[in-house]
């Protein structure tokens, strides 16, 4: 792990340590944390620990700017969810907000200073058609018209092709499960619907249960291969674990849920990596990892490269190869070889432009 990456991790763990950084270190940390979508997070942490006045003036300016962007994104998510509810409130099914949108709407710790991508939701697979139609009537339309893309999503994936609102330009990812149908691990979506938490003030909006929130975040991070946001997602996990692990009996509940949903492996990765990189207190949670074989050293090193991939300065030697291996790994976990090989060939040959983008 290089020194710049270590400094970013230290700032995330102990914001008060930011007061001791030199200007030269700040010049780098500003860029690295911005690339990792974590500058606004550091800004809030600096205010909370009363370290704000000790920051160099130029750093305070950038943090102030980043805070405005984060606040704006939270407003945008709230508005988008409001419009989404307008479109779907008359359906007698639960509409489950996932990840960022869930954190914002239930005001959970990862929401603070977080930057967002698309809005993700989960609905029962049996009602997908109805949900899609309602959303279309309210202005969300598909962008993936290619027949191959349609088949890829509809037959194999855990979501329909992304849909974009024609006037607001916002993108929705509508899921019916949290892992592809073809994936190695087989969580049953019906299990997720048994432990939902209502979002206050909305008729049929929910988030996943406390344990499931952690399991989904871990599954997304370690099995879907979006490593550009890897560190931010790990920071989410750290915040969720710190928030829920203090509740009595939570460890047992989390372990049981992980077994039920076939997600013990991503949970172990999550506990291992949050502890290693962000010093997340494990307490009883340690039991979940302790009686299992330790995380394979090679896998562990690949993950470290993944978390450091947000900015070229953070990379350790061998990063390119490691990222390629992570890319292959995410596909390997996504599909069995007889589907994967034709799919990768299609991506490489049939659509060179898309594959490059």
């Amino acid at each position, binding site marked *: 792990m290089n020194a710049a990456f270590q400094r970013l991790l230290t700032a995330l763990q102990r914001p008060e340590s930011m007061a001791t950084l030199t200007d030269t270190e700040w010049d780098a940390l500003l860029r690295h944390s911005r690339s990792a979508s974590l500058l606004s997070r550091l800004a809030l942490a600096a205010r909370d620990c009363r370290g704000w006045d000790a920051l160099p003036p130029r750093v305070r300016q950038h943090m102030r700017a980043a805070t*405005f962007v984060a606040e*704006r994104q939270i407003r945008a998510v709230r508005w988008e969810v409001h419009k989404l509810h307008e479109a779907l409130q008359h359906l007698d099914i639960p509409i489950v907000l996932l990840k960022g949108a869930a954190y914002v709407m239930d005001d959970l710790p990862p929401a603070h200073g977080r930057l967002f991508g698309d809005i993700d939701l989960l609905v029962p697979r049996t009602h997908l058609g109805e949900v899609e139609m309602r959303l279309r009537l309210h202005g969300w339309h598909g962008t993936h018209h290619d027949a191959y893309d349609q088949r890829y999503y509809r037959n194999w994936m855990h979501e329909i092709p992304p849909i974009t609102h024609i006037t607001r330009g916002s993108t929705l990812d509508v899921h019916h499960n949290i892992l592809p149908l073809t994936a190695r691990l087989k969580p049953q979506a019906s299990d997720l619907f048994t432990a939902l938490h209502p979002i206050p003030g909305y008729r049929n909006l929910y988030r996943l249960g406390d344990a499931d929130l952690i399991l989904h975040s871990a599954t997304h991070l370690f099995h879907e291969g979006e490593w550009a946001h890897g560190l931010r997602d790990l920071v989410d996990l750290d915040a969720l674990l710190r928030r829920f692990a203090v509740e009595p009996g939570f460890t047992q509940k989390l372990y049981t849920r992980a077994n039920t949903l076939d997600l013990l492996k991503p949970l172990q990765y999550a506990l291992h990596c949050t502890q290693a990189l962000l010093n997340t207190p494990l307490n009883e949670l340690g039991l979940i990892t302790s009686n299992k074989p330790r995380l394979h050293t090679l896998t562990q090193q690949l993950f470290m490269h993944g978390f450091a991939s947000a900015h070229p300065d953070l990379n350790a030697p061998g990063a390119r190869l490691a990222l390629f291996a992570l890319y292959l790994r995410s596909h390997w976990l996504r599909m069995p070889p007889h589907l994967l090989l034709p799919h990768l060939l299609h991506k490489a040959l049939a659509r060179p432009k898309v594959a490059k983008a």
Partner: protein
Amino acid sequence: MIRDVTRIRDLSDQELTHRLAQGLDLETGPFVFHIQSRESAVFNGIRRIYADFPVSTEAVRDFHVRVRRPTNLRRWYHPQVVFEHDRQSPFKPLPANHAFASLEWGMNWCIAGYAHQYLTLHAAVLERNGRAVMLPGEPGAGKSTLTAALSLSGWRLLTDETALVDLDTGELWPMARPINLKNNSIDIIQAFAHDAVFGDKAFDTHKGTVAHLKPSQETVLRMHEPCRIGWVIFPRWQADSPARLTRRPRADTFVFAAENSFNYSILGETGFRTLEGLIRAADCYDFQYSHLDEALSTFESLSA
């Protein structure tokens, strides 16, 4: 106390080349750009247009930018350059002789994209006798031509491109950068002021031919001096029209300015308050003109 400032003109050609290869820390108003490039067009532009600007000695820089040759086959028959901000390229590569223009556009892109510690508006700003005039830009309205002429006639240029409004005090901060002139405007200003200093022209860009006008020494020396708003004026060049100022409603001006802001919606309530304070303190006009001389005397009488 006077800081011991090194300016671009104090550097020898060799030193400037060396600094540009390693990264030159250029101070322009409130921002420090760390600029890396081996392109001769960038060297020439900085040498001529930024001669009076200070070299920053601060360790924290705002933006790390680079203009470099992409490693593609074209470099052998049709060399290109690409602008990078912190190792990311927001734009497609451009022909190599547009390197300086590409740097200027890239620097503006950085400010529009990240400087949300200000309310940023697409407008030119100049100052006379302690009051600022803001000229919002409708493309083709002749904003840059008028801005250049004013800046060569006793008005202090704060910015030609992006107005920076302080979120706490409502004052306008100088960006102190060259004026980007296009097509006929270049000839008009060259005829208007024979001693005006221009950078090399870049032909056939997406905006036609562009050239950059060197800002006055006063603009550079007072780059840390903000100014209160006096007027918001919407210029429009109209063939054969006499110079004419007409009142424009503040509400209408507010809406136009909000729509021409880079970050009004990002700033939310703070953006609303800041813009409201700015427009309330300004006299707002539409301004039609056909002759620069008439336009200048109209502005002269305003500021008297």
